[in-house]
Protein backbone atom coordinates (compact mmCIF):
# COMPACT_ATOMS: atom_id res chain seq x y z
CA UNK A 1 0.00 0.00 0.00
CA UNK A 2 1.78 3.11 -1.22
CA UNK A 3 1.02 6.68 -0.33
CA UNK A 4 2.56 9.57 -2.21
CA UNK A 5 2.55 13.30 -1.62
CA UNK A 6 1.72 16.08 -4.06
CA UNK A 7 2.15 19.68 -2.95
CA UNK A 8 -0.90 21.76 -3.91
CA UNK A 9 1.47 24.09 -5.72
CA UNK A 10 2.47 21.07 -7.81
CA UNK A 11 -1.09 20.16 -8.87
CA UNK A 12 -0.91 22.30 -11.99
CA UNK A 13 2.29 20.59 -13.11
CA UNK A 14 0.69 17.22 -12.37
CA UNK A 15 -2.40 17.97 -14.49
CA UNK A 16 -0.34 19.46 -17.32
CA UNK A 17 1.98 16.45 -17.35
CA UNK A 18 -1.01 14.09 -17.60
CA UNK A 19 -2.71 16.25 -20.22
CA UNK A 20 0.34 15.90 -22.44
CA UNK A 21 -0.29 12.15 -22.56
CA UNK A 22 -4.06 11.87 -22.59
CA UNK A 23 -7.38 13.67 -22.28
CA UNK A 24 -7.82 14.81 -18.66
CA UNK A 25 -11.28 15.50 -17.29
CA UNK A 26 -12.16 17.10 -13.96
CA UNK A 27 -14.98 19.02 -12.26
CA UNK A 28 -15.39 22.53 -13.64
CA UNK A 29 -17.63 25.33 -12.29
CA UNK A 30 -20.61 26.05 -14.59
CA UNK A 31 -22.14 28.88 -12.57
CA UNK A 32 -25.28 28.98 -10.37
CA UNK A 33 -23.68 26.40 -8.05
CA UNK A 34 -23.48 23.81 -10.81
CA UNK A 35 -20.45 21.78 -11.82
CA UNK A 36 -19.67 19.40 -14.66
CA UNK A 37 -16.88 17.01 -15.55
CA UNK A 38 -15.14 18.50 -18.58
CA UNK A 39 -11.78 18.32 -20.28
CA UNK A 40 -9.15 20.49 -18.56
CA UNK A 41 -5.63 21.46 -19.47
CA UNK A 42 -4.45 22.98 -16.20
CA UNK A 43 -5.33 23.00 -12.51
CA UNK A 44 -6.85 26.46 -12.69
CA UNK A 45 -9.80 25.04 -14.65
CA UNK A 46 -10.59 22.60 -11.85
CA UNK A 47 -13.09 23.16 -9.05
CA UNK A 48 -11.43 21.32 -6.16
CA UNK A 49 -14.32 21.98 -3.84
CA UNK A 50 -17.53 21.13 -5.65
CA UNK A 51 -21.06 19.91 -5.23
CA UNK A 52 -21.61 16.69 -7.24
CA UNK A 53 -21.54 17.50 -10.95
CA UNK A 54 -24.75 17.76 -13.03
CA UNK A 55 -24.00 14.38 -14.60
CA UNK A 56 -21.86 11.80 -12.83
CA UNK A 57 -18.68 10.48 -14.47
CA UNK A 58 -20.66 7.49 -15.77
CA UNK A 59 -20.97 9.56 -18.95
CA UNK A 60 -17.38 8.65 -19.79
CA UNK A 61 -18.05 4.90 -19.70
CA UNK A 62 -21.61 4.90 -20.94
CA UNK A 63 -21.94 8.05 -23.03
CA UNK A 64 -25.34 9.75 -23.32
CA UNK A 65 -25.38 8.69 -26.97
CA UNK A 66 -23.13 6.04 -28.36
CA UNK A 67 -22.75 4.09 -31.56
CA UNK A 68 -22.96 0.34 -30.97
CA UNK A 69 -23.17 -1.06 -34.48
CA UNK A 70 -22.51 0.03 -38.02
CA UNK A 71 -24.21 -1.69 -40.92
CA UNK A 72 -24.18 -1.73 -44.67
CA UNK A 73 -27.04 -3.15 -46.71
CA UNK A 74 -25.72 -2.27 -50.15
CA UNK A 75 -24.52 -5.81 -50.90
CA UNK A 76 -26.42 -9.01 -51.52
CA UNK A 77 -26.18 -9.74 -47.80
CA UNK A 78 -26.11 -7.12 -45.02
CA UNK A 79 -22.82 -6.56 -43.21
CA UNK A 80 -22.34 -5.24 -39.68
CA UNK A 81 -19.54 -4.18 -37.36
CA UNK A 82 -19.64 -3.66 -33.59
CA UNK A 83 -17.67 -0.57 -32.67
CA UNK A 84 -16.55 1.42 -29.64
CA UNK A 85 -14.88 4.77 -29.23
CA UNK A 86 -12.62 4.37 -26.19
CA UNK A 87 -9.96 7.05 -25.82
CA UNK A 88 -7.16 6.86 -23.28
CA UNK A 89 -8.23 9.29 -20.56
CA UNK A 90 -7.80 10.39 -16.97
CA UNK A 91 -10.62 11.51 -14.69
CA UNK A 92 -9.52 13.63 -11.78
CA UNK A 93 -11.46 14.65 -8.69
CA UNK A 94 -14.03 11.85 -8.47
CA UNK A 95 -15.82 11.89 -5.11
CA UNK A 96 -16.34 8.66 -3.18
CA UNK A 97 -20.07 8.64 -3.99
CA UNK A 98 -19.24 8.58 -7.69
CA UNK A 99 -16.51 5.97 -7.24
CA UNK A 100 -19.17 3.80 -5.61
CA UNK A 101 -21.47 4.53 -8.54
CA UNK A 102 -18.83 3.42 -11.04
CA UNK A 103 -18.38 0.22 -9.05
CA UNK A 104 -22.12 -0.47 -9.26
CA UNK A 105 -22.10 0.01 -13.02
CA UNK A 106 -18.98 -2.17 -13.35
CA UNK A 107 -20.96 -4.98 -11.75
CA UNK A 108 -23.95 -4.46 -14.03
CA UNK A 109 -22.02 -4.27 -17.28
CA UNK A 110 -19.56 -7.07 -16.54
CA UNK A 111 -22.39 -9.45 -15.68
CA UNK A 112 -22.73 -11.86 -18.59
CA UNK A 113 -23.42 -11.22 -21.39
CA UNK A 114 -20.90 -8.45 -20.74
CA UNK A 115 -21.17 -5.04 -22.35
CA UNK A 116 -17.83 -4.64 -24.13
CA UNK A 117 -18.43 -0.98 -24.93
CA UNK A 118 -18.73 -0.03 -21.28
CA UNK A 119 -15.88 -2.27 -20.14
CA UNK A 120 -13.48 -1.14 -22.84
CA UNK A 121 -13.92 2.52 -21.92
CA UNK A 122 -13.63 1.78 -18.24
CA UNK A 123 -10.43 -0.15 -18.80
CA UNK A 124 -8.85 2.73 -20.73
CA UNK A 125 -9.52 5.30 -17.99
CA UNK A 126 -7.25 6.34 -15.15
CA UNK A 127 -9.55 7.16 -12.25
CA UNK A 128 -8.37 9.60 -9.59
CA UNK A 129 -10.61 10.02 -6.56
CA UNK A 130 -10.83 13.05 -4.30
CA UNK A 131 -11.92 12.79 -0.68
CA UNK A 132 -14.69 14.96 0.78
CA UNK A 133 -13.44 16.18 4.13
CA UNK A 134 -16.89 17.58 4.84
CA UNK A 135 -20.40 17.47 3.31
CA UNK A 136 -20.93 19.03 -0.10
CA UNK A 137 -24.45 20.14 0.93
CA UNK A 138 -27.48 19.04 2.89
CA UNK A 139 -28.89 16.81 0.13
CA UNK A 140 -26.14 14.21 0.38
CA UNK A 141 -26.78 10.96 2.22
CA UNK A 142 -23.44 9.24 1.68
CA UNK A 143 -22.97 8.28 5.31
CA UNK A 144 -26.26 6.36 5.24
CA UNK A 145 -24.86 4.05 2.58
CA UNK A 146 -21.24 4.17 3.69
CA UNK A 147 -20.00 5.94 0.56
CA UNK A 148 -18.32 8.82 2.40
CA UNK A 149 -15.07 6.87 2.73
CA UNK A 150 -13.09 5.39 -0.18
CA UNK A 151 -13.85 1.75 -0.90
CA UNK A 152 -11.67 1.15 -3.96
CA UNK A 153 -12.81 1.83 -7.49
CA UNK A 154 -9.88 4.17 -8.25
CA UNK A 155 -6.28 4.08 -9.39
CA UNK A 156 -5.21 7.03 -7.26
CA UNK A 157 -7.07 8.68 -4.40
CA UNK A 158 -6.34 12.23 -3.26
CA UNK A 159 -6.99 13.55 0.24
CA UNK A 160 -6.54 17.23 1.01
CA UNK A 161 -4.11 17.78 3.90
CA UNK A 162 -4.11 21.59 3.74
CA UNK A 163 -0.98 22.50 1.77
CA UNK A 164 -0.64 19.09 0.10
CA UNK A 165 -2.52 16.04 -1.12
CA UNK A 166 -1.77 12.59 0.19
CA UNK A 167 -2.36 10.12 -2.61
CA UNK A 168 -3.32 6.51 -2.04
CA UNK A 169 -2.15 4.21 -4.81
CA UNK A 170 -4.63 1.43 -5.45
CA UNK A 171 -3.38 -0.06 -8.73
CA UNK A 172 -0.19 -0.65 -10.66
CA UNK A 173 -1.53 1.77 -13.27
CA UNK A 174 -1.76 4.41 -10.54
CA UNK A 175 1.69 3.56 -9.20
CA UNK A 176 3.19 3.98 -12.67
CA UNK A 177 1.74 7.49 -12.85
CA UNK A 178 2.94 8.46 -9.35
CA UNK A 179 6.42 7.01 -9.94
CA UNK A 180 6.61 8.45 -13.45
CA UNK A 181 6.02 11.92 -12.07
CA UNK A 182 8.49 11.23 -9.23
CA UNK A 183 5.99 12.04 -6.48
CA UNK A 184 7.67 11.60 -3.08
CA UNK A 185 6.49 8.90 -0.70
CA UNK A 186 4.35 9.93 2.25
CA UNK A 187 6.09 10.26 5.63
CA UNK A 188 4.74 8.98 8.97
CA UNK A 189 3.71 12.58 9.70
CA UNK A 190 1.61 12.62 6.49
CA UNK A 191 0.01 9.34 7.50
CA UNK A 192 -0.86 10.76 10.90
CA UNK A 193 -2.43 13.80 9.23
CA UNK A 194 -4.54 11.50 7.04
CA UNK A 195 -5.70 9.58 10.13
CA UNK A 196 -6.72 12.88 11.67
CA UNK A 197 -8.82 13.83 8.62
CA UNK A 198 -10.57 10.48 8.75
CA UNK A 199 -11.14 10.76 12.49
CA UNK A 200 -12.67 14.20 12.05
CA UNK A 201 -14.92 12.83 9.27
CA UNK A 202 -16.27 10.22 11.64
CA UNK A 203 -17.60 13.11 13.70
CA UNK A 204 -18.91 15.18 10.77
CA UNK A 205 -20.58 12.46 8.67
CA UNK A 206 -23.58 10.96 10.43
CA UNK A 207 -26.46 8.85 9.19
CA UNK A 208 -28.49 11.52 7.44
CA UNK A 209 -31.98 10.10 7.90
CA UNK A 210 -31.76 8.68 11.39
CA UNK A 211 -32.81 5.24 10.18
CA UNK A 212 -30.56 2.20 10.47
CA UNK A 213 -29.68 1.18 6.87
CA UNK A 214 -29.93 -2.46 7.94
CA UNK A 215 -33.67 -1.87 8.30
CA UNK A 216 -34.15 -0.46 4.81
CA UNK A 217 -34.65 -3.85 3.10
CA UNK A 218 -37.48 -4.69 5.50
CA UNK A 219 -38.92 -1.20 5.15
CA UNK A 220 -39.02 -1.61 1.37
CA UNK A 221 -40.37 -5.16 1.65
CA UNK A 222 -43.45 -3.70 3.28
CA UNK A 223 -43.47 -0.45 1.34
CA UNK A 224 -45.11 -1.30 -1.99
CA UNK A 225 -48.49 0.11 -0.98
CA UNK A 226 -47.19 3.02 1.10
CA UNK A 227 -48.99 6.33 0.62
CA UNK A 228 -45.71 8.13 -0.02
CA UNK A 229 -45.72 6.84 -3.62
CA UNK A 230 -48.98 8.47 -4.61
CA UNK A 231 -47.82 11.63 -2.92
CA UNK A 232 -44.62 11.60 -5.04
CA UNK A 233 -46.70 10.72 -8.11
CA UNK A 234 -48.71 13.89 -7.62
CA UNK A 235 -45.59 16.01 -7.52
CA UNK A 236 -43.47 14.32 -10.21
CA UNK A 237 -43.18 16.06 -13.60
CA UNK A 238 -41.82 12.90 -15.34
CA UNK A 239 -38.88 14.78 -16.78
CA UNK A 240 -36.39 11.99 -16.12
CA UNK A 241 -33.85 14.31 -14.48
CA UNK A 242 -33.52 12.16 -11.36
CA UNK A 243 -32.42 9.08 -13.29
CA UNK A 244 -30.24 10.87 -15.82
CA UNK A 245 -28.17 12.40 -13.03
CA UNK A 246 -28.01 9.22 -10.95
CA UNK A 247 -24.56 7.60 -10.82
CA UNK A 248 -26.10 4.10 -10.75
CA UNK A 249 -28.91 4.46 -13.30
CA UNK A 250 -28.06 2.72 -16.54
CA UNK A 251 -31.32 2.06 -18.40
CA UNK A 252 -31.03 2.72 -22.09
CA UNK A 253 -32.83 2.75 -25.39
CA UNK A 254 -31.55 1.92 -28.85
CA UNK A 255 -32.49 3.21 -32.28
CA UNK A 256 -31.33 2.69 -35.85
CA UNK A 257 -30.39 5.51 -38.15
CA UNK A 258 -29.89 5.13 -41.87
CA UNK A 259 -27.81 7.56 -43.87
CA UNK A 260 -29.26 9.44 -46.83
CA UNK A 261 -27.58 6.96 -49.18
CA UNK A 262 -30.22 4.57 -47.76
CA UNK A 263 -27.54 1.86 -47.69
CA UNK A 264 -25.38 2.47 -44.63
CA UNK A 265 -26.34 3.28 -41.10
CA UNK A 266 -25.78 2.61 -37.45
CA UNK A 267 -27.44 1.74 -34.17
CA UNK A 268 -27.24 4.28 -31.36
CA UNK A 269 -27.70 3.65 -27.68
CA UNK A 270 -29.14 6.55 -25.67
CA UNK A 271 -29.80 6.94 -21.96
CA UNK A 272 -33.41 6.22 -21.13
CA UNK A 273 -35.41 6.80 -17.97
CA UNK A 274 -37.96 4.68 -16.14
CA UNK A 275 -39.65 7.97 -15.21
CA UNK A 276 -40.68 8.73 -18.77
CA UNK A 277 -44.23 7.96 -19.83
CA UNK A 278 -43.44 5.30 -22.44
CA UNK A 279 -40.65 3.41 -20.70
CA UNK A 280 -42.64 0.27 -19.88
CA UNK A 281 -45.01 0.31 -22.85
CA UNK A 282 -45.15 -2.86 -24.95
CA UNK A 283 -45.81 -3.00 -28.69
CA UNK A 284 -49.53 -3.65 -28.23
CA UNK A 285 -49.85 -0.40 -26.29
CA UNK A 286 -50.15 -1.69 -22.73
CA UNK A 287 -48.18 0.39 -20.21
CA UNK A 288 -46.89 -1.62 -17.26
CA UNK A 289 -46.06 1.52 -15.27
CA UNK A 290 -48.69 3.99 -16.34
CA UNK A 291 -48.84 6.10 -13.19
CA UNK A 292 -46.19 8.54 -12.07
CA UNK A 293 -46.54 7.03 -8.60
CA UNK A 294 -45.64 3.58 -9.96
CA UNK A 295 -42.67 5.00 -11.80
CA UNK A 296 -41.36 6.88 -8.77
CA UNK A 297 -41.80 3.80 -6.64
CA UNK A 298 -39.89 1.80 -9.23
CA UNK A 299 -36.98 4.24 -9.07
CA UNK A 300 -36.68 3.88 -5.31
CA UNK A 301 -36.98 0.11 -5.46
CA UNK A 302 -34.22 0.06 -8.08
CA UNK A 303 -32.02 1.79 -5.52
CA UNK A 304 -32.93 0.19 -2.22
CA UNK A 305 -34.56 -3.16 -2.89
CA UNK A 306 -34.02 -4.85 -6.28
CA UNK A 307 -30.19 -4.60 -6.45
CA UNK A 308 -29.78 -6.22 -3.03
CA UNK A 309 -31.02 -9.44 -4.59
CA UNK A 310 -28.38 -9.54 -7.30
CA UNK A 311 -25.51 -7.31 -6.18
CA UNK A 312 -25.81 -7.38 -2.37
CA UNK A 313 -25.78 -3.58 -2.11
CA UNK A 314 -27.88 -0.47 -2.40
CA UNK A 315 -27.68 1.25 -5.75
CA UNK A 316 -27.78 4.60 -4.01
CA UNK A 317 -24.44 6.19 -3.25
CA UNK A 318 -25.88 9.16 -1.37
CA UNK A 319 -24.64 11.77 -3.86
CA UNK A 320 -27.89 13.73 -3.53
CA UNK A 321 -28.13 14.55 -7.24
CA UNK A 322 -31.73 13.34 -7.66
CA UNK A 323 -32.90 15.68 -4.92
CA UNK A 324 -30.83 18.61 -6.16
CA UNK A 325 -32.04 18.31 -9.76
CA UNK A 326 -35.71 17.74 -9.07
CA UNK A 327 -37.85 20.72 -10.05
CA UNK A 328 -40.60 19.40 -7.79
CA UNK A 329 -38.07 19.08 -4.95
CA UNK A 330 -38.76 15.41 -4.39
CA UNK A 331 -36.22 14.58 -1.71
CA UNK A 332 -34.65 11.17 -1.36
CA UNK A 333 -33.95 11.72 2.32
CA UNK A 334 -37.51 12.83 3.03
CA UNK A 335 -38.95 9.91 1.09
CA UNK A 336 -36.87 7.40 3.03
CA UNK A 337 -37.84 9.03 6.31
CA UNK A 338 -41.52 8.93 5.38
CA UNK A 339 -41.26 5.26 4.48
CA UNK A 340 -39.50 4.44 7.73
CA UNK A 341 -42.12 5.99 9.98
CA UNK A 342 -43.58 3.33 12.19
CA UNK A 343 -40.80 0.82 11.59
CA UNK A 344 -38.86 1.59 14.78
CA UNK A 345 -35.10 1.21 14.86
CA UNK A 346 -34.41 4.90 14.65
CA UNK A 347 -30.89 5.78 15.60
Amino acid at each position, binding site marked *: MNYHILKKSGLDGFIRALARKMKVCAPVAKGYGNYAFEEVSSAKDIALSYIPTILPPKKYFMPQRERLLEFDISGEKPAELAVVDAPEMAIFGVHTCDLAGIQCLNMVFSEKPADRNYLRRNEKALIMGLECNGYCDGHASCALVGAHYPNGGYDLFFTDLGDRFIIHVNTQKGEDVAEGLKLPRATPADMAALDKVREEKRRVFQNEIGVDPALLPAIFDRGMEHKVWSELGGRCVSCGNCTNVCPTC*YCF*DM*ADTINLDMKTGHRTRTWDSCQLENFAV*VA*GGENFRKLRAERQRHRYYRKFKYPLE*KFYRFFCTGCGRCTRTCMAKISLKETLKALAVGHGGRI
Partner: protein
Amino acid sequence: MSEIINNSSWRLRMGRITAARRMTAAEKWFEIELEDGDLEHEPGQFVQVELFGVGEAPVSVCSSPTRRGRFELTVRAAGRLTTHMQTLKAGDWVGIRGPFGRPFPVKLMIGNDLLLVAGGLGIAPLRSLINYVMDNRREFGKVDILLGCKTPEDMLFGDEVKAWEKRLDVNFSCTVDRGAPDWKGNVGLITSLIPGVTIAPERTFAVVVGPPIMYKFVIAELAAKRVPERQIILSLERHMKCGMGKCGHCQIDHPKNYYCCKDGPTFTYEEVKAASRL
Protein backbone atom coordinates in the same frame (compact mmCIF):
# COMPACT_ATOMS: atom_id res chain seq x y z
CA MET B 1 -11.17 6.58 -33.97
CA SER B 2 -13.47 3.62 -33.40
CA GLU B 3 -12.19 0.22 -32.48
CA ILE B 4 -13.94 -2.89 -33.74
CA ILE B 5 -15.17 -5.28 -31.04
CA ASN B 6 -15.45 -8.75 -32.43
CA ASN B 7 -16.81 -10.30 -29.24
CA SER B 8 -19.47 -7.63 -28.71
CA SER B 9 -22.79 -8.98 -27.54
CA TRP B 10 -24.44 -6.41 -29.80
CA ARG B 11 -23.31 -8.26 -32.92
CA LEU B 12 -25.95 -9.71 -35.20
CA ARG B 13 -26.30 -13.09 -36.82
CA MET B 14 -27.47 -12.82 -40.40
CA GLY B 15 -30.68 -14.66 -41.15
CA ARG B 16 -32.28 -15.22 -44.53
CA ILE B 17 -36.04 -15.59 -44.80
CA THR B 18 -36.62 -18.90 -46.56
CA ALA B 19 -40.42 -18.78 -46.51
CA ALA B 20 -43.08 -16.24 -45.55
CA ARG B 21 -46.84 -16.56 -45.39
CA ARG B 22 -49.65 -14.24 -44.35
CA MET B 23 -51.68 -15.90 -41.61
CA THR B 24 -54.33 -13.33 -40.74
CA ALA B 25 -54.88 -9.69 -41.61
CA ALA B 26 -52.44 -8.68 -38.89
CA GLU B 27 -50.07 -11.62 -38.62
CA LYS B 28 -47.40 -13.01 -40.86
CA TRP B 29 -45.34 -16.17 -40.51
CA PHE B 30 -41.65 -16.42 -41.41
CA GLU B 31 -39.16 -19.25 -41.67
CA ILE B 32 -35.56 -18.12 -41.21
CA GLU B 33 -32.20 -19.79 -41.79
CA LEU B 34 -29.15 -18.42 -40.03
CA GLU B 35 -26.01 -18.17 -42.04
CA ASP B 36 -23.85 -19.41 -39.14
CA GLY B 37 -25.82 -22.55 -38.25
CA ASP B 38 -28.71 -23.57 -36.06
CA LEU B 39 -30.36 -21.10 -33.70
CA GLU B 40 -29.88 -23.67 -30.87
CA HIS B 41 -32.93 -22.43 -29.02
CA GLU B 42 -35.23 -24.17 -26.56
CA PRO B 43 -39.03 -23.93 -26.43
CA GLY B 44 -40.21 -20.62 -24.98
CA GLN B 45 -37.19 -18.51 -25.95
CA PHE B 46 -37.19 -15.41 -28.13
CA VAL B 47 -34.90 -13.60 -30.56
CA GLN B 48 -34.29 -9.94 -31.33
CA VAL B 49 -35.06 -9.27 -34.98
CA GLU B 50 -33.21 -6.39 -36.62
CA LEU B 51 -34.49 -4.69 -39.76
CA PHE B 52 -31.55 -2.58 -40.78
CA GLY B 53 -32.29 1.10 -40.40
CA VAL B 54 -35.72 0.47 -38.91
CA GLY B 55 -34.78 -1.05 -35.57
CA GLU B 56 -35.08 -4.14 -33.48
CA ALA B 57 -37.93 -5.96 -31.76
CA PRO B 58 -38.24 -9.09 -29.63
CA VAL B 59 -40.17 -11.96 -31.22
CA SER B 60 -40.93 -15.40 -29.73
CA VAL B 61 -39.65 -18.37 -31.65
CA CYS B 62 -42.75 -20.37 -32.59
CA SER B 63 -41.02 -23.50 -33.87
CA SER B 64 -39.71 -26.45 -31.91
CA PRO B 65 -35.95 -27.04 -31.65
CA THR B 66 -36.64 -30.65 -32.62
CA ARG B 67 -37.05 -29.34 -36.18
CA ARG B 68 -33.52 -28.10 -36.64
CA GLY B 69 -31.80 -25.98 -39.25
CA ARG B 70 -34.43 -23.31 -39.56
CA PHE B 71 -36.67 -21.53 -37.10
CA GLU B 72 -40.01 -19.80 -37.38
CA LEU B 73 -41.53 -16.54 -36.17
CA THR B 74 -45.09 -15.29 -36.19
CA VAL B 75 -45.18 -11.51 -36.19
CA ARG B 76 -48.21 -9.39 -35.41
CA ALA B 77 -48.20 -5.82 -36.72
CA ALA B 78 -48.19 -3.98 -33.41
CA GLY B 79 -45.30 -1.53 -33.30
CA ARG B 80 -43.16 0.20 -35.87
CA LEU B 81 -40.83 -2.73 -36.51
CA THR B 82 -43.41 -5.50 -36.50
CA THR B 83 -45.58 -3.47 -38.86
CA HIS B 84 -42.70 -2.95 -41.26
CA MET B 85 -41.82 -6.63 -40.99
CA GLN B 86 -45.11 -7.49 -42.68
CA THR B 87 -43.54 -6.31 -45.96
CA LEU B 88 -40.69 -8.87 -45.82
CA LYS B 89 -40.68 -11.87 -48.11
CA ALA B 90 -38.61 -14.96 -48.86
CA GLY B 91 -35.06 -14.05 -49.81
CA ASP B 92 -34.90 -10.95 -47.57
CA TRP B 93 -32.26 -10.72 -44.88
CA VAL B 94 -32.76 -9.83 -41.22
CA GLY B 95 -30.32 -9.49 -38.35
CA ILE B 96 -30.84 -11.83 -35.40
CA ARG B 97 -29.58 -11.68 -31.81
CA GLY B 98 -30.28 -14.54 -29.46
CA PRO B 99 -31.85 -16.87 -28.57
CA PHE B 100 -32.61 -15.13 -25.28
CA GLY B 101 -34.54 -15.93 -22.14
CA ARG B 102 -35.30 -18.84 -19.88
CA PRO B 103 -37.11 -21.58 -21.79
CA PHE B 104 -40.09 -23.60 -20.56
CA PRO B 105 -38.85 -26.13 -17.96
CA VAL B 106 -39.23 -29.03 -20.39
CA LYS B 107 -36.99 -31.43 -18.45
CA LEU B 108 -39.04 -30.99 -15.27
CA MET B 109 -42.22 -31.68 -17.17
CA ILE B 110 -41.11 -35.12 -18.35
CA GLY B 111 -43.35 -37.85 -17.00
CA ASN B 112 -46.12 -35.43 -16.08
CA ASP B 113 -49.48 -34.51 -17.59
CA LEU B 114 -49.54 -31.26 -19.52
CA LEU B 115 -52.28 -28.67 -19.76
CA LEU B 116 -51.24 -26.20 -22.47
CA VAL B 117 -53.34 -23.03 -22.61
CA ALA B 118 -52.92 -20.28 -25.21
CA GLY B 119 -54.88 -17.10 -25.78
CA GLY B 120 -54.52 -14.99 -28.93
CA LEU B 121 -50.95 -14.63 -30.13
CA GLY B 122 -49.88 -16.72 -27.10
CA ILE B 123 -50.14 -19.68 -29.43
CA ALA B 124 -46.88 -18.56 -31.09
CA PRO B 125 -44.51 -19.16 -28.15
CA LEU B 126 -46.61 -22.09 -26.96
CA ARG B 127 -46.38 -23.77 -30.36
CA SER B 128 -42.62 -24.19 -29.81
CA LEU B 129 -43.54 -26.33 -26.82
CA ILE B 130 -46.55 -28.07 -28.38
CA ASN B 131 -44.50 -29.29 -31.32
CA TYR B 132 -41.67 -30.27 -29.01
CA VAL B 133 -44.12 -32.35 -27.01
CA MET B 134 -45.58 -33.88 -30.19
CA ASP B 135 -42.09 -34.85 -31.32
CA ASN B 136 -41.35 -36.37 -27.89
CA ARG B 137 -44.88 -37.50 -27.14
CA ARG B 138 -43.77 -40.69 -25.34
CA GLU B 139 -42.02 -38.64 -22.60
CA PHE B 140 -45.21 -37.06 -21.29
CA GLY B 141 -48.46 -38.26 -19.75
CA LYS B 142 -51.88 -36.95 -20.74
CA VAL B 143 -51.74 -33.82 -22.92
CA ASP B 144 -54.58 -31.27 -23.09
CA ILE B 145 -54.39 -28.26 -25.38
CA LEU B 146 -56.80 -25.33 -24.93
CA LEU B 147 -56.85 -22.50 -27.45
CA GLY B 148 -58.73 -19.24 -27.40
CA CYS B 149 -58.94 -16.40 -29.88
CA LYS B 150 -61.23 -13.51 -30.80
CA THR B 151 -62.94 -14.89 -33.91
CA PRO B 152 -62.49 -17.98 -36.12
CA GLU B 153 -60.56 -15.83 -38.66
CA ASP B 154 -57.99 -14.96 -36.01
CA MET B 155 -57.06 -18.61 -35.53
CA LEU B 156 -53.36 -19.09 -36.21
CA PHE B 157 -51.74 -22.30 -37.57
CA GLY B 158 -55.14 -23.54 -38.76
CA ASP B 159 -53.78 -26.64 -40.55
CA GLU B 160 -51.71 -27.69 -37.58
CA VAL B 161 -54.59 -27.06 -35.23
CA LYS B 162 -56.72 -29.42 -37.32
CA ALA B 163 -53.99 -32.05 -37.11
CA TRP B 164 -53.81 -31.70 -33.30
CA GLU B 165 -57.57 -32.03 -33.19
CA LYS B 166 -57.38 -35.34 -35.00
CA ARG B 167 -54.60 -36.89 -32.93
CA LEU B 168 -55.70 -39.52 -30.48
CA ASP B 169 -52.86 -38.86 -28.04
CA VAL B 170 -53.89 -35.24 -27.44
CA ASN B 171 -57.09 -33.73 -26.06
CA PHE B 172 -57.78 -30.55 -27.92
CA SER B 173 -60.41 -27.85 -27.47
CA CYS B 174 -60.71 -24.33 -28.63
CA THR B 175 -63.05 -21.42 -28.17
CA VAL B 176 -63.67 -18.03 -29.78
CA ASP B 177 -64.96 -14.81 -28.21
CA ARG B 178 -67.27 -14.19 -31.17
CA GLY B 179 -68.38 -16.95 -33.51
CA ALA B 180 -69.07 -16.89 -37.25
CA PRO B 181 -72.03 -18.38 -39.17
CA ASP B 182 -70.09 -21.55 -40.03
CA TRP B 183 -68.44 -21.86 -36.61
CA LYS B 184 -69.53 -25.02 -34.82
CA GLY B 185 -67.11 -24.88 -31.91
CA ASN B 186 -67.22 -23.25 -28.47
CA VAL B 187 -67.97 -19.59 -27.99
CA GLY B 188 -66.81 -17.95 -24.78
CA LEU B 189 -63.69 -17.16 -22.77
CA ILE B 190 -60.88 -19.67 -22.52
CA THR B 191 -61.49 -19.99 -18.79
CA SER B 192 -64.76 -21.73 -19.60
CA LEU B 193 -62.83 -24.70 -21.04
CA ILE B 194 -60.81 -25.48 -17.92
CA PRO B 195 -63.56 -26.94 -15.69
CA GLY B 196 -64.12 -29.60 -18.36
CA VAL B 197 -60.55 -30.90 -18.21
CA THR B 198 -59.78 -33.82 -15.90
CA ILE B 199 -56.70 -32.86 -13.93
CA ALA B 200 -54.55 -34.88 -11.55
CA PRO B 201 -53.12 -31.77 -9.91
CA GLU B 202 -49.94 -33.21 -8.37
CA ARG B 203 -48.74 -34.59 -11.69
CA THR B 204 -49.89 -31.76 -13.96
CA PHE B 205 -47.88 -28.90 -15.40
CA ALA B 206 -50.10 -26.12 -16.74
CA VAL B 207 -48.41 -23.82 -19.26
CA VAL B 208 -50.33 -20.61 -19.90
CA VAL B 209 -49.44 -18.06 -22.55
CA GLY B 210 -51.63 -15.14 -23.49
CA PRO B 211 -52.34 -11.47 -22.94
CA PRO B 212 -51.76 -10.18 -19.37
CA ILE B 213 -55.52 -9.85 -18.72
CA MET B 214 -55.98 -13.60 -19.28
CA TYR B 215 -53.59 -14.78 -16.59
CA LYS B 216 -55.58 -13.75 -13.55
CA PHE B 217 -58.68 -15.65 -14.62
CA VAL B 218 -56.93 -18.77 -15.90
CA ILE B 219 -54.83 -18.98 -12.75
CA ALA B 220 -57.97 -18.78 -10.63
CA GLU B 221 -59.42 -21.76 -12.54
CA LEU B 222 -56.20 -23.71 -12.14
CA ALA B 223 -56.11 -22.91 -8.44
CA ALA B 224 -59.66 -24.28 -8.20
CA LYS B 225 -58.32 -27.48 -9.75
CA ARG B 226 -55.54 -27.46 -7.12
CA VAL B 227 -52.65 -27.33 -9.58
CA PRO B 228 -49.58 -26.44 -7.47
CA GLU B 229 -48.33 -22.88 -8.03
CA ARG B 230 -44.89 -24.07 -9.02
CA GLN B 231 -46.41 -26.21 -11.74
CA ILE B 232 -48.22 -23.31 -13.35
CA ILE B 233 -45.87 -21.86 -15.97
CA LEU B 234 -46.51 -18.44 -17.49
CA SER B 235 -44.75 -16.54 -20.25
CA LEU B 236 -44.90 -12.84 -19.41
CA GLU B 237 -44.97 -9.93 -21.79
CA ARG B 238 -42.76 -6.88 -21.35
CA HIS B 239 -40.75 -4.76 -23.76
CA MET B 240 -37.49 -6.71 -23.95
CA LYS B 241 -35.18 -4.29 -25.69
CA CYS B 242 -31.66 -5.55 -25.06
CA GLY B 243 -32.35 -9.18 -24.19
CA MET B 244 -29.44 -9.21 -21.75
CA GLY B 245 -30.97 -7.99 -18.51
CA LYS B 246 -29.52 -4.50 -18.76
CA CYS B 247 -31.62 -1.90 -20.54
CA GLY B 248 -34.27 -1.99 -17.80
CA HIS B 249 -37.37 -1.89 -20.00
CA CYS B 250 -38.64 -5.38 -19.21
CA GLN B 251 -38.11 -5.37 -15.46
CA ILE B 252 -41.05 -6.71 -13.51
CA ASP B 253 -42.20 -4.88 -10.38
CA HIS B 254 -41.33 -7.78 -8.15
CA PRO B 255 -39.10 -8.02 -5.04
CA LYS B 256 -36.79 -10.52 -6.76
CA ASN B 257 -35.42 -8.10 -9.37
CA TYR B 258 -36.73 -10.15 -12.29
CA TYR B 259 -35.90 -9.09 -15.81
CA CYS B 260 -38.40 -10.63 -18.18
CA CYS B 261 -35.75 -11.11 -20.89
CA LYS B 262 -33.27 -13.00 -18.75
CA ASP B 263 -35.01 -14.43 -15.70
CA GLY B 264 -38.07 -15.06 -17.89
CA PRO B 265 -40.06 -14.72 -20.05
CA THR B 266 -41.22 -18.04 -18.58
CA PHE B 267 -41.85 -18.05 -14.85
CA THR B 268 -43.68 -20.31 -12.48
CA TYR B 269 -46.69 -18.67 -10.90
CA GLU B 270 -45.04 -19.28 -7.54
CA GLU B 271 -42.13 -17.11 -8.63
CA VAL B 272 -44.11 -14.16 -9.92
CA LYS B 273 -47.25 -14.09 -7.84
CA ALA B 274 -45.73 -11.30 -5.72
CA ALA B 275 -45.42 -9.09 -8.80
CA SER B 276 -47.66 -6.04 -8.76
CA ARG B 277 -48.80 -7.03 -12.27
CA LEU B 278 -48.46 -10.21 -14.31
